[in-house]
């Protein structure tokens, strides 16, 4: 598959698609002023990381957290952490990391820093972030270089997860998977990390259902994949989760360590982790600025809606949300080519003709987002302990994917209902996908859908319903829509959930670091 996707097999009404985009933009525009006028503790921590601050104190608390507490204590946060550090560096003539260390052992305080001319502060701030922003740019170039010199897999990319909880076992399994043909390796995060309001530090070997996302773990895995990729003559992409209460910080860490793909949704945390929506909208905006700048493909999480809602009834909510994620991404200047919008094959296989509806939905997303490296998720909800049946369901998923030109193909595992993948599960899954993709490689170009058939009609109806839903949201606003449980049938309150206490209004003196990305990403 080469994007943009060229076919128009569903006879979709182009004006419906345009209308949906206008509505989605409107909805995002409604909350943009709020987003731009606020920041959060995690945004500020990520700015500290961009200044080069890392490490933990003797008790293991990350320096960025300690500093934010300090700034908060002295009511300096509203001006932005960057301003305090620019001033402190100018004043103490020390680098941020040294200053951070001193702050951490209470050898120094930022209280009562003398003021400097605004221009000097801005200049300092820019100079301070220069090295890491350059490192990010270099990583981006490095990726582009590897892709062009080593070569890339072909779409649909084979994407598998490792989730042993131990980064070293993960590395081993990731390498095994790469040798077997995986194009993308995702390291799944430990259960519960998303609700931590700090990022763990160093290499870790004890996670549940996943491995902690730490910068060191990112580095270790990146190195391993570069090594095996070099050997295989194929660049192996690395994925992690830019999600949860530390979304922006993880974006920085990922950008620095050359992750290639990040799970990064504008609303997932709200809906599935009960993170406060104000917090999330601000965090996602900033994290996406970084992802966009770093050339990282974001993956959105609409597939998750279908784990709590019925995949047939809620098909349009996925599409509507894709439109919103697209507009949120545009707001952070992420181009379509970096927007891996998510969707899934989750219809109950007991529904007669389930596959036809799946094809309709998959093709619909493909055609509406022709430039997006859309992410297609395998059956999970209706997987059972019968691994043989599961292998069949996954085979049909592979067929659907290659038939509809998906881009990022998450491999289904025959043991989905049982455990995070064993080494052999991943192997069997890769073998299956490779077989199907090879065998059906050009099926897509060989078939047309019957005019006004079930497939076309289901796709058209889904689009119509999505437009209807967006119209509704545009009227009531996104906050209200979330309160009404319009996504995944889960309702959240604007002031409920975790992390609201980390949100604050920027003061008029706030030093806005997002401007930096403007310059560089253009």
């Amino acid at each position: 598959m080469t994007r943009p996707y060229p076919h128009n097999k569903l006879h979709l009404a182009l004006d419906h698609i345009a209308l949906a985009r206008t509505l989605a933009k409107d909805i995002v525009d409604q909350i943009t002023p709020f987003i731009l006028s606020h920041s959060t503790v995690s945004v500020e921590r990520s700015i500290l990381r961009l200044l080069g601050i890392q490490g933990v104190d003797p008790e293991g608390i990350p320096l960025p957290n300690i500093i934010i507490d300090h700034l908060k204590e002295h009511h300096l946060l509203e001006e932005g952490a960057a301003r305090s550090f620019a001033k402190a560096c100018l004043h103490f003539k020390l680098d941020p990391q040294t200053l951070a260390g001193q702050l951490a052992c209470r050898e120094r305080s930022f209280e009562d820093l003398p003021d400097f001319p605004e221009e000097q502060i801005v200049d300092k701030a820019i100079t301070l972030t220069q090295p890491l922003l350059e490192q990010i740019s270099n990583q981006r170039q490095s990726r582009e270089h590897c892709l062009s010199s080593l070569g890339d897999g072909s779409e649909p990319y084979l994407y598998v997860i490792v989730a042993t909880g131990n980064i070293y076992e993960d590395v081993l399994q990731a390498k095994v998977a790469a040798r077997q043909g995986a194009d993308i390796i995702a390291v799944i995060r430990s259960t519960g990390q998303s609700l931590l309001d700090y990022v763990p530090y160093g290499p870790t070997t004890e996670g549940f259902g996943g491995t902690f996302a730490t910068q060191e773990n990112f580095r270790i895995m990146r190195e391993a994949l570069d090594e095996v990729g070099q050997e295989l003559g194929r660049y192996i992409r690395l994925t992690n989760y830019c999600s949860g209460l530390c979304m922006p910080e993880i974006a920085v860490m990922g950008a620095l360590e050359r992750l290639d793909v990040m799970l990064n949704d504008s609303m997932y945390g709200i809906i599935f982790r009960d993170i406060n929506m104000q917090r999330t909208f601000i965090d996602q905006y900033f994290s996406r600025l970084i992802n966009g700048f770093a050339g990282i493909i974001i993956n959105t999480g609409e597939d998750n809606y279908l784990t709590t809602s019925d995949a047939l009834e809620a098909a349009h909510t996925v599409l509507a949300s894709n439109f919103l994620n697209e507009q949120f991404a545009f707001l952070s200047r992420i181009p379509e080519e970096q927007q891996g919008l998510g969707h899934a094959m989750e219809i109950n296989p007991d529904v007669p003709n389930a596959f036809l509806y799946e094809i309709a939905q998959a093709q619909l997303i493909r055609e509406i987002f022709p430039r997006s490296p859309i992410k297609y998720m395998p059956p999970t909800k209706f997987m059972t302990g019968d691994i043989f049946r599961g292998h069949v369901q996954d085979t049909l998923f592979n067929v659907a994917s290659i038939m509809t030109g998906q881009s990022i193909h998450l491999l289904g595992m025959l043991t989905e209902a049982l455990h995070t993948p064993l080494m052999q599960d991943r192997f069997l899954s890769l073998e299956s996908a490779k077989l199907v993709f090879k065998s059906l490689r050009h099926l897509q170009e060989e078939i047309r859908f019957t005019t006004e058939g079930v497939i076309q009609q289901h796709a058209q109806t889904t689009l119509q319903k999505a437009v209807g839903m967006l119209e509704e949201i545009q009227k009531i606003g996104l906050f209200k829509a979330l309160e009404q449980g319009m996504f995944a049938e889960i309702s959240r309150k604007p002031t409920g959930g975790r992390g609201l206490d980390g949100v604050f209004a920027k003061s008029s003196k706030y030093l806005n670091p997002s401007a930096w990305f403007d310059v560089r990403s253009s």
Partner: protein
Amino acid sequence: MPTIDYRQIRPYGDTLDDGIIQLSFTLPVPFGEEAQEAARRWALQSGFWDPKVVVALDLGEGFTFFVLYACSTVCIDFTSIEVPKLSHERLEKSEIDLLIRTLLGRKLVIVGACIESDAHTVGIDAIMNMKGYNGHKGLESYHEIDAINLGSQVSCEELLTKAHEVLADAILISQVVTQKSLHLQNLTRMVELLELEGLRDRFLLVAGGPRINYELAKELGYDAGFGPGTYAEDVASFVLDRVLARCVK
């Protein structure tokens, strides 16, 4: 027709008592004839006879995957198997509401949550939320039940506090993530907390999740446990039965 001796049950491939089973596993040894022999020896040492390594596949990095067919000589006495089961009758929604009204004379109060780091609410929602599961309405839809679903990632302390506050009859706990026996840790934590506070007998304690069953839950110190395919009425029947039994005492 082959006649089966239920005192001596063996796996059945295509002939009675042939003992044929299928296995697959990975060994951390490099692919090759020696690997194949290692797999065969593993099977022999595990007590199988005539093991056939039907395929050995190179996973890379010094790992090899095998599929085997082998014969087992292990026999099970099927006649001796007794599975502990819930003793009460399984009632329907309308019967439950009626019995609460007539026999208990007040609402039954039930709190539930998916505790600690676990965020899989679909299971507990299936039991508690209005909508229910597979056409079986959830506890919220019962007129005579006060059902309070706290959702996901609720700490044991929070859950206990809530149970106190609403004077709950029963506490329902869902645990879905089982990797490294996390569910056992979390479930045990709740029991310990209750015992610590001398409250273990104050509430009926019920666990549920894909890897939970009655036996396991009892072992962990719960009053009952429910696995896949449970509906609200299963849980409500049980809770009501026990609450009524307590009233009588």
